[in-house]
């Protein structure tokens, strides 16, 4: 079973993403802010991480940059999933090293398709 860590400070979104992923048989762990997410990643490396952008303590962009800078994590697939959906912010998301960028609200099927692609590639 592939394991996915979801990092988001909004409980509703953690819940929505968890429901979508669990329905497809993925194992889901969650963290409520960037720093907690980073700690969870280092303690137990998942197969993929989904990051919200606007979070207290540490933003999704910061987490993503730290993942890319860490030799043990640098090849981890990263999906940015955020309420921001302006084009420039998508580019900013990809600049920090994210593999995919999706806006909330998302189509569950689209999220799954992208995750599946990333997991097959890695």
């Amino acid at each position, binding site marked *: 079973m592939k394991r996915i860590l979801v990092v988001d400070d909004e409980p509703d979104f953690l819940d929505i993403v968890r429901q979508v992923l669990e329905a497809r048989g993925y194992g889901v762990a969650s963290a409520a802010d960037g720093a907690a997410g980073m700690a969870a990643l280092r303690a137990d490396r998942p197969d993929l991480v989904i990051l919200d952008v606007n979070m207290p303590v540490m933003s999704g962009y910061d987490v993503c940059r730290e993942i890319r800078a860490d030799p043990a994590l640098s090849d981890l697939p990263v999906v940015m999933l955020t309420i921001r959906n302006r084009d420039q912010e998508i580019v900013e998301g990809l600049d920090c090293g994210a593999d995919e960028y999706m806006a909330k*609200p998302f189509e569950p099927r689209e999220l799954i398709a992208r995750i599946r692609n990333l997991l097959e590639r890695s």
Partner: protein
Amino acid sequence: MKLRDNLTIFAVAASAVSLEAYIIGLWWFGRDGGSLRLDLNRYLLVSQAYLVGVGILVYASGRRVIRPLESILEGIAHFRRGRLQHRIPPSRVQELDDLANQLNRMAARLAELDRLKNDFVANVSHELRSPLAAMEGYVKLLLEGSPGDERARSNLMRIDANLGRLRRMVEELLDASQIEAREVRVRAEACDLAELLRELRLLFEPLAQASGVALRLETAGELPRATTDPEKVRRILTNLIDNAIKYNRAGGEAFITAGADDGSFSISVRDTGIGIPPESLDGVFERFRRAPVPSSHAPRTKGVGLGLSISRGFARALGGDLRVQSVLGTGSEFTLTLPRRSAA
């Protein structure tokens, strides 16, 4: 009549009166001759000089009042046009200086209120996005998971569509507040405007057909490549084409024409719709302003009235502009001009 004209007339009149007195004196005393005449002559000369002096003094002190009054009027005109950063210069006349200060303070207060309103709109719309997106997320989950009941499914789809509409309105409010705060970020890249126009035409074809409007694209062949923010251009044109269909009549037409010259692009969207009355033309780009719509069109024209204001804001952020021409009952034409290269 202007105060300045009054003063000029007074000065001229004073000179004329004194000159007249001088001439009459010369004539009167000229009959007697002698030293009396010389004395009186001197007296009249002095009084003439005195009158001219008074005239000049009145005129000069009048200028001291007029000039600050003119800058106050100028300042009020600036404020009325929304240029609240303008300041009326100080005056040496105490009362007028007080007046100028009061007006300046009023303008500063208005600017402050405007900023607060803008921040408020930005914050509220920002905060609204999360719960809206969460609701949309849950509705999509329900739609995914409940293939069964047809009625329930159709109801959920309606909720989903309405949440989508609400989200777009909130995004518009956020866009408008960013334009207002001059925080629009431009991401310029090479793009093919002719291709974008073809794409938009296809995208709007179903809406045009459903509204009984013929949508036509007329470009003079291929357009040269532009360096601009394609997402913003798309937003502007989407809004214009949507309006051209929405504010049209059944059996009407909407034309998209595009051309380029040395320095710029020009894209027009023209409709054969209800038009905009001349007195409303200036206001169509103002925030929350909507073209007056006959009740027959009302159900089709829902929105917050930010579309054109955002479109013009984006056009200007790209270094271009958006203008309108309209004939009531005949139709409107919106023309977007864009420079070949928009500064990023």
